């Protein structure tokens, strides 16, 4: 049996330790970014408008829908159209650049693409509201 001198064994070990060979990761990590919907709730007066400002961190799509609309003090859904819009805060309001007239529904009603920046979600009465109404808008953006 060949007897290796200790320094040869030690040198071999240390040389192996010096290597820079990358090794494959044992596990694959997948990062998923979850975007939570923003809920904008409030009371919309007859002929009135309300807006909510939000910041978009990177270019991406925005989807929105009017989740509910009820007369103040009532629970029944008010099936009349109001205007949902997206724009940029300006003056004391929201300068809307895209909009849709919609009644409450649990489907996407407004879709657009936004670059990074500050925007606003706007809701306004287009003349169909019989009285002040409580609304809820849900929207998702990047």
């Amino acid at each position, binding site marked *: 049996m060949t007897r290796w*001198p*200790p*320094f040869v064994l*030690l*040198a071999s070990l*240390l*040389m192996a*330790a*010096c290597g820079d060979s990358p090794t494959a990761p044992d596990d694959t990590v997948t990062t998923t970014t979850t975007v939570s919907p923003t809920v904008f709730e*409030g009371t919309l007066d007859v002929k009135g408008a*309300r*807006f*909510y*400002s*939000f*910041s978009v961190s990177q270019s991406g799509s925005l989807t929105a829908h009017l989740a509910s609309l009820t007369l103040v003090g009532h629970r029944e859904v008010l099936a009349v159209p109001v205007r949902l819009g997206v724009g*940029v*805060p*300006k*003056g*004391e309001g929201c300068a809307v650049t895209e909009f849709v007239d919609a009644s409450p529904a649990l489907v996407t009603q407004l879709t657009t693409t936004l670059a990074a*920046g*500050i925007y*606003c979600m706007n809701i306004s009465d287009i003349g169909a509201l019989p009285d002040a109404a409580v609304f809820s808008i849900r929207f998702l953006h990047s």
Partner: protein
Amino acid sequence: MRVHILIALIAALALSVSCGDETPTSPTDTSTSTTTTTAAAPTVSEEFSSVVPVGGSKFYSFTTSTYGTINLTLASVGGSLVPSTVMLGLGLGQPSGTECVTTSTVNTAAGSAVQLTGAYNAGVYCARVFDIGNLFAPASFNVTIAYP
């Protein structure tokens, strides 16, 4: 046997040294580049006129096109039971939610000199006027907003 151990120790020491990170060297040339961006002067002026309720606030949004100076001036305050010298809060920030989230504020009476100023990147900003506890009745006001 002792010779082997000695040689092994020397070899280990030598290899350990060779395992170290590369020795940094001094740069042969040094060049420093400093870029100074000058804030653009205001070129646009808007008037924000409204009424602030007791204990409340009002805000006004605007968009600047380039890095530059934003000036806010509470030009006048008035209304029934509201002395023109009353101090109000004046703030500058960015719209968020249903509010204007201010990053800079000052308590001031109306005057002709700029009361709040600063250099800001291009973007959407808001001027906010708010009662700091001095009002007993709603106050009408006028704020001049100047920006690039």
